[in-house]
């Protein structure tokens, strides 16, 4: 079943077309990777889908409803949640606090209710804490949950970024380079975690440079080059695609003899 459709999504920065009429669908419960050389427009595409950047043209339809043009926080509220490329977390909060606050959109209490500490506010608090404990446990962060986030090592920070996104209870999770800066063991562990998240029924869109991880994890792959989609298929199809090989390695130029 198609959970998200992207139709002719385009972003122009002045004369540069960063994303050029990109069209694809994401099926429910799959891992769909978006790969391409540096500057191909992958992260820009993520920002367009989640409304962190205004689009120039095109539409994003999520569960039959157009979400283009909504504010970023409303897109998150619908269930389309992104993570960030760098280790973007609330650095001056503990790991637990990071995940608790990330439950924000499940909160039922109004600002006044929070101030007065009403029953609803207290119930929310307890629910958030339990759920945060569960998420941290799942991502192997229980031991460090009371550490201030800025003191955590890189691998834990990436996991924490995903924990924050999971707290939003996403239907579509957009992971922006979750494996960057990780050693092979950390990557393997993270690949398992991402699989686990997919098995919970979350559709995953993945931007990643680590090809080994991408090939192992993806159900389908989309390849972008200069903002344009040049290929779309299973990992095996992509590995043998002429256009993809050309984009990554370049074409031999017979005339120059190289």
């Amino acid at each position, binding site marked *: 079943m198609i959970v998200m459709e992207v139709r002719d999504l385009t972003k122009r920065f002045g004369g540069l077309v960063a994303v050029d009429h990109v069209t694809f669908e994401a099926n429910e419960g799959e891992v769909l990777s978006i790969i391409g050389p540096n500057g191909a427009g992958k992260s820009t595409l993520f920002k367009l889908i*989640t409304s*962190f950047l205004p689009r120039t043209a095109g539409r994003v339809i999520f569960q039959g409803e157009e979400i283009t043009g909504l*504010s*970023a*926080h409303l897109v*998150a*509220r619908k269930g389309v*949640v*992104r*993570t*960030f490329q760098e280790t*973007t*977390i*609330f*650095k*001056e*909060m*503990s790991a637990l*606090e990071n995940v*608790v*606050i*990330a439950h*924000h*959109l499940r*909160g039922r*209490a109004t*600002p006044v209710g*929070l*101030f007065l*500490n009403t029953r609803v*506010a207290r119930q*929310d*608090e307890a629910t958030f804490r339990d759920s945060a404990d569960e998420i941290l446990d799942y991502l192997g962060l229980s031991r460090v949950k009371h550490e201030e986030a800025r003191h955590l090592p890189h691998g834990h920070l990436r996991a924490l970024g995903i924990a*924050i*996104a999971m*707290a*939003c209870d996403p239907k579509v999770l957009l992971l922006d380079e979750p494996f960057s800066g990780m050693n092979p063991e950390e990557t393997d562990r993270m690949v398992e975690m991402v699989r686990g998240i997919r098995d919970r029924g979350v559709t995953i869109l993945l931007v990643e440079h680590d090809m080994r991880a991408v090939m192992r994890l993806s159900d389908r792959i989309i390849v972008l080059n200069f903002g344009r989609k040049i290929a779309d298929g299973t990992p095996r199809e992509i590995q043998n695609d002429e256009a993809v090989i050309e984009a990554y390695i370049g074409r031999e130029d017979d005339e120059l003899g190289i």
Partner: protein
Amino acid sequence: MRLRVAAALVGLALYLVVVPFVFRESRYLLGILTTASVLSLISLGVWLTFAIGRINIGQAAFALVGGYTTAILSVKLGVSFWLCLPASGLAAALVGAVIGWPILRLKGVYFAMITLTLSEAARLAALNGGTITQGATGILNIPLPGEVTFAGVVLVPAFRALNVHLAFYYLAAILLVLGLFTVTRIASCRLGWIFRSLRQDEALAASIGVNVAKYRVLAFALGCFFAGIAGAFFTVSQQSIYPSSFGVPDSVYFMLYCFLGGLSYVSGPVVGAFVLFLGFELLHGLREYQMLTYAAIMITMMLWLPNGLLSLRLPARPGMKADA
């Protein structure tokens, strides 16, 4: 925890009972303590915008809005001060929300600069307000607070029938205690967490579904509410208001009280305002060297205690902390 409650109660007793009793006949001392209390209240408002990561140098503008609201309502329409007071807070909050909505998109030095211009813009608006604000003449002869009766019982007697200085001291003290309680509560409930999340990373906050624009306007408007209340207080205690009653230097002071008291602590602006304002008054005897000495002390403090006076004794406690 119990120790802190006990300390708070002792402090409260000193502030509300012992000090006013001992100094009841000393107009000068009561006067500066009253002023310090209300300056603390204004600075608490500035602290709220620090909580969402914005440096606010426009607080004087909202104090003027509050002051003129009280002056106009009480002199021209004969409204009781006790209604003018909340009305002034609300007026300042409303103006704050309307101006804040667009300007809170700015960050860092850009936001600070535009709020600085607000301080000056408000003064010019009051100066050119025609018959409404009475221009440079200001609004004079503002009546003292009248009595409040409920079902025939006098709850608050008219101020002119009392020791006026003591009455204003109590009014200021009660306002400050309420203000401090409110801000402490905000900082410790999840609302405070949301504000902190905005300060640390607005994009991440938006990605977890926080309505960034709404919460930063909320924090800013609350801060303006405090300024409005304090503006109303000064207007009625001095029985007059002029366009120059609150200006750019005042805004800078309110910000400095927060900085020097300690941004990580809710009580930072209160400590900052009391220590700095009382310190300035105590240096009165130095006459022409007063400002110079005061400035030197301020600079030394900033170098020696960059995280504020409170960082001297209090270890950072996760519950109280608002994160610097």
